[in-house]
């Protein structure tokens, strides 16, 4: 599969990316996943999706809010993610972290993450206790009253140090993204700039919650081993009384077309050089998005893929190389190629190889076998993804936010329609130098010497490191 770890939503890469590669399995066996979904809109505007899945005695409950760093303002970046953290710090009924304590005592695990586009809260739990997260999520949608603001902000600042300051590749990702997006809020990292984080206040968070955490701005999804009608009823009872806040502000910014190659160089404490190429691309709204998915797989999906064979196996220039395309971003995002080099390898030499591979993609249509291979990989990934109820819930929720959960099924056909000419055409249109931001990490060494560069950057942004699953 695509290995990509540098995105503004790294969770999207780890959890959703595999699932994002779905296709028709043997034609239609799995085309109708969404036929079994019960979808309801409550009178307050909350969208509710429920899907029975009786594979294992477990269930998941997800709440998606259509708010992410995309909704933030200059000088107040990181507020979405901080707000996500504060959602665990208590309500008018519950004390700090009591949410998680109750979930765990009921045989469940909970977490949350923030992307540029949305914020997701999820619980996976013993099927007998799905009523618990339903009532607790309703409570924190309406009774937000966090305690211990300062210590939670300190936790988030530590998170930024861990993810970005001390992580050279993420630092490069952050600065490259800021160079690729000038006007659009995808410019800043999800976790926020360090100086902004330090200035955020409890009042900022409360105002943000009031604006964005309301039924009209949310989607809830339950998947698992339960009686769907009963769960719908529980959800309706818990969430129907919740009133809406003000209407969320629109995000009017549109990124102007990129006219000419951009380059950014980051000096950062590290030992190995790294680089990335980011191209502006359309999102799910464009039929080209399917061909871009296929292009990403052809370049870096599996060990037989073009870039892996060229750069890892043949030329031995890089430790690893990945290509990723974020089809599900709310606004048009990026197609990104990233590589960490072996010691002593020059960025220019790797860039030359990459240019060569991209020009091949632009000039020569893929062979029948190679195209079919990419489609097969997407199809298998789609089916494998259905083995996880959490992944199913996330796909349904994300598609619903984009317009309709029904799009989950359309992907199949879209991927199967892609022709070799389509791939060549989108490569010619989007994967070109004038549309590219090249980021190069210049390592300044990890051995300590005072006054070395200090980088900054973004990443995924989860509420907590996943609790290590207790061993058997």
């Amino acid at each position, binding site marked *: 599969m695509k290995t990509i770890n540098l995105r503004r939503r790294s969770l999207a890469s780890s959890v959703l990316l595999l699932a994002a590669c779905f296709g028709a*399995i043997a034609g239609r066996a799995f085309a109708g996943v969404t036929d079994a979904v019960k979808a309801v809109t409550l009178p307050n505007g909350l969208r509710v999706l429920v899907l029975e899945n009786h594979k294992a005695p477990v269930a998941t409950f997800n709440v998606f809010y259509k708010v992410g760093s995309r909704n933030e303002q200059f000088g107040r970046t990181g507020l979405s993610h901080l707000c996500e953290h504060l959602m665990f710090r208590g309500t008018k009924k519950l004390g700090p972290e009591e949410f998680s304590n109750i979930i765990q005592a009921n045989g469940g695990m909970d977490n949350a993450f923030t992307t540029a586009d949305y914020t997701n809260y999820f619980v996976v739990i013993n099927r007998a206790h799905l009523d618990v997260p339903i009532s607790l999520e309703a409570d924190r949608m309406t009774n937000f009253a966090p305690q211990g603001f300062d210590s939670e902000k300190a*936790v988030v600042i530590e998170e930024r140090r861990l993810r970005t300051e001390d992580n050279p590749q993420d630092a490069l990702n952050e600065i490259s993204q800021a160079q690729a997006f000038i006007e659009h809020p995808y410019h800043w990292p999800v976790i926020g700039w360090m100086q902004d984080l330090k200035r955020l206040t409890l009042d900022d968070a409360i105002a943000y919650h009031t604006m964005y955490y309301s039924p009209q701005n949310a989607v809830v999804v339950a998947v698992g081993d339960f009686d769907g009608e009963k769960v719908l009823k529980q959800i309706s009872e818990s969430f129907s009384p919740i009133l809406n806040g003000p209407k969320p502000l629109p995000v009017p910014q549109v990124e102007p077309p990129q006219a000419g190659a951009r380059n950014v160089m980051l000096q950062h404490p590290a030992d190995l050089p790294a680089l990335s190429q980011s191209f502006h691309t359309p999102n799910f709204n464009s039929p080209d998005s399917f061909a871009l998915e296929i292009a990403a797989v052809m370049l870096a999906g599996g060990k037989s893929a073009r870039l892996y064979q060229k750069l*890892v196996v043949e030329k031995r220039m890089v430790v690893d190389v990945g290509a990723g395309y974020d089809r599900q971003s709310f606004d048009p995002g990026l197609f990104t190629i990233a590589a960490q080099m072996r010691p002593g390898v020059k960025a220019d030499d790797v860039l030359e190889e990459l240019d060569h591979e991209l020009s091949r993609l632009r000039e020569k249509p893929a062979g029948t076998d190679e195209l079919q291979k990419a489609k097969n990989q997407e199809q298998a990934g789609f089916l494998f993804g259905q083995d996880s109820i959490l992944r199913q819930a996330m796909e349904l929720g994300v598609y619903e936010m984009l317009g309709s959960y029904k799009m989950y099924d359309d992907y199949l056909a879209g991927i199967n329609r892609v022709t070799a000419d389509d791939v060549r055409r989108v490569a010619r249109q989007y994967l070109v130098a004038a549309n590219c931001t090249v980021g190069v990490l210049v390592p300044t060494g990890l051995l300590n010497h005072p006054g070395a560069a200090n980088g900054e950057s973004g990443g995924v942004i989860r509420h907590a490191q996943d609790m290590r699953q207790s061993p058997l």
Partner: protein
Amino acid sequence: MTPRRTSILILTLAMTLAGARCFALDIKRVTLGNGATLLISEQHQLPMVTMAIAFDAGARRDPQGKGGLAQLTAQSLTEGTRDMAAKQVDEKTDFMGSSLAVEAGQDYANAQITTLKRYWPDTLHLLAAVLSQPGLRDADIMRKRSELIAGLNSQAEQPGYVAQVTFAKLLFGDRPYGHPPEGTPESVATLTPQDVRQFYKQYYRLGSAVIAVVGDVTAQEVKEAIEKGFTGIEGTVAPQAEPAKIEVAPGAHVTKIDRNITQANLTLGFGGVARSHPDYYRLQVMNYILGGGGFSSRLVREVRSKAGLAYSVGSQFESGKFQGSFQVVLQTKNASANQAIRMVLQQMRDIQNTAATDSEIDSAKKFLIGSFPLKIDRQSTIASFLLQIELYGLGLDYADKYPALIQSVSKEDVQRVARAYLRPDAYLLVAVANQSEAAINVASADQH
């Protein structure tokens, strides 16, 4: 949440535990003609299959000074067969949309495939070729060796990784578990193709292997396909002698690694227990309360939630075939390192000196028992579960027995194992940090 509501929740939990017995894994266990033990759980909901084979070929088998040999062998196996070049294996795998990998862990090497049902026979055939007729050509092994070293160079940039590897080296020394499966750049550089072929011949033996198959297949067809496909690697592996017990001498043994970074990455710990140790379940409950239970644990509550010192903090007993380790792992800004260390040591002493509360014990048990189904809710985790119950002798009815194993742990047990196994006065501490900013001083950190 009102107290009344909570008590309702507890009642429901008690009811589920009775109902939670039907895990529907329906495990079948057979010994094959080639000597391997096969465990199967038929799962017909999705047209896909996952298969995992554990060979007694983990990193604990690495010869002295040859750290990384088990991993280099494992990864070289998929680099071509007698009849196919490496690239052909990759092409075939990717064309089917299957995954196929062999990786060494500390205890065992794991060969695993995941495939659509329609490609199950072909993917199985490919795995059989990789395992029983591998190419193991010099050029492929040397290329893989160079990739392994490149990967190690990359991991050396991650301060958490460096802290872990250093801690294990200091704790286990030359014993098993003393180096990571991928070895070190120095040890991997000494490995030869001959070493790899010898290791393969010695340790990839079906008579000592366990095979788990989960998915849309029948037990009978799996048995026949494996007996037919996997030939030429019969035989068994000689048992490995139990290593000497680990003892950390009294005192704080501090190792500082200086890096130009913003956080101190701390690993603090000492020897633990083997998976088979009779105190294993008591330690699980105790550690959940101390630092294994996420937001319900004392370490997260004190170090993260109250003090805001760390994003991630936790403790764990790593338990394998042999005695493992206990570790507390956290990252905090350099300047807070001493304060964080002090809090960790204090939490260990507290759980030794004062019995945990009834409510803590109750919550720990409810989580461990109630969340068990979450550990076996998809093919990959079921396959891993099947391997573990066989390799560690847990029994086919382990899922049913588990609640009683946890329920039997008492408050007194928790305090006893905290006193017996936690060593706040005899520990190793590895700190990868900006040392001048962190100014780690255990004497000042450890005021008690």
